[in-house]
């Protein structure tokens, strides 16, 4: 009996050490991903959000040295203006993604799921993106925008919240044929339904998830 007891203690401790291997944080990169950043911004920025919603055609991006780059509210952004704030992140799609234009019937239709399932599915898409790459995804949520402070790049995401609205998950989207600037995208905090092809890309060594060839669906 003493031997069994000793064996149990050893196995319990071994399991304790093993359990560390399954920690969720090992599945994600050390850096916050864009959607995490967006989710946090959506939670914390209330006054700023309201201001930007009221005047969606004017966006301000802070540069590294604290100067502000202001995009004009002309309605359409010229290449010259866009290049001022455009960064150099790699937007190259995976080959299997290029074969899908995202117009077909969605393989993952998040609009048909309840909030629990949507939140869980999006979480899993972010955690294990290779399983979902090149699949057509349709989702409904809140449009959120953020900028890279170093490059001035704009990023837009469709954000969904869980039942208690304290946790958010979302996916960045790139509208087909449109530059990622506020003028060409929906206003922040507006309800959107977006359909696109799920893919990932690398920026400064970190992998990010995105919906390519995205279209806004009524």
């Amino acid at each position, binding site marked *: 009996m003493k031997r069994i007891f000793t064996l149990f203690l050893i196995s*319990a401790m071994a399991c304790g050490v093993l359990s560390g291997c*399954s920690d969720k944080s090992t599945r994600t990169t050390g850096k916050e991903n864009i959607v995490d950043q967006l*989710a946090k911004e959506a939670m914390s920025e209330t006054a700023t959000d309201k201001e930007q919603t009221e005047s969606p055609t004017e966006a301000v991006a802070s540069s590294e040295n604290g100067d502000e780059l202001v995009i004009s509210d002309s309605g359409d952004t010229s290449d010259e203006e866009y290049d001022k704030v455009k960064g150099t992140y790699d937007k190259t799609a995976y080959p299997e993604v290029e074969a899908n234009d995202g117009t077909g019937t969605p393989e993952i239709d998040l609009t048909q799921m309840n909030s629990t399932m949507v939140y*869980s599915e999006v979480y899993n898409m972010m955690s294990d993106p290779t399983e979902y790459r090149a699949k057509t995804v349709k989702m409904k949520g809140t449009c959120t925008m953020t900028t890279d402070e170093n490059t001035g790049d704009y990023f837009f995401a469709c954000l969904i919240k*869980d039942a208690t609205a304290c946790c958010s998950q979302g996916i960045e989207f790139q509208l087909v044929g449109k530059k990622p600037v506020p003028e060409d995208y929906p206003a922040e905090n507006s309800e959107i339904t977006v359909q696109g092809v799920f893919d990932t890309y690398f920026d400064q060594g970190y992998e990010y998830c995105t919906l390519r060839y995205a279209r806004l669906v009524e």
Partner: protein
Amino acid sequence: MEKLIEYLQFPFVRYAIIVGVLIALCSSLLGVTLVLKRYSFIGDGLSHVAFGAMAIAACANLTNEMVIILPVTILSAILLLKTGNNTKIKGDAAIAMISVGALAFGYLMMNVFSTSSNVSGDVCSTLFGSMSILTLDSEEVTLCVILSVIVVAVFIIFYNRIFDVTFDENFARAVGTKVSKYNLMIAIVIAVIIVLAMNLVGSLLISALVIFPALSSMRLFKSFKSVTLFSAIFSVICSLSGMLISILAGTPVGSTIVAVQVVAFFICFIIGKITGRS
């Protein structure tokens, strides 16, 4: 039913059901012992300790939070169960002290030193489980299966000893049972279950998994064996029902499971009253 079948196609739903059932089974087995030893609230206390440890690990930016959570929880469980009533601070007071202390300390740490800007989201997720059970990967499921098999095996192998220690420690000691060692074993098993169960229902609701199956079972049965068996069945059915309702209705998993257990408890209570067993 169509919706359920559709949802079951998702691997994370299947994982959640497997892990949920296993955690429910394990927690109910030890729940009977804890309730009879007057340690019903230990699950709550230990889960708060685990929350505090998780906060420290998060603030320290550890990629492997379990390195801190599991040892700290096991240590606390040993301190609470092993010392029992032989200390100046009695069992229930010690649990309350450790429980609120760890909860407050953890929340303070997360606010002051947290690297995440969404503190409310992190706290909500840890305290109420949120959707944790629906975000498990295959490695975590495998680990849970292994730990659950160990817990069930330990319970079966040491069933008689656990029975002795549960009802009368002095008598068990008198007949040569190494009570302190078995208390240590129970403490370790409980700590492992608590850490696992945090995924299912979150820190604040873990006690429900421990006490409701045991209390409901005691409304209907009298012997330790029958109470334990019914407790396990009750816990598994309630957890499974709770998860399915949650998935279909879009409600939070942890609180739905506990709500189902509360309803089931009252059903058992009424049946017990009618049949005169209660």
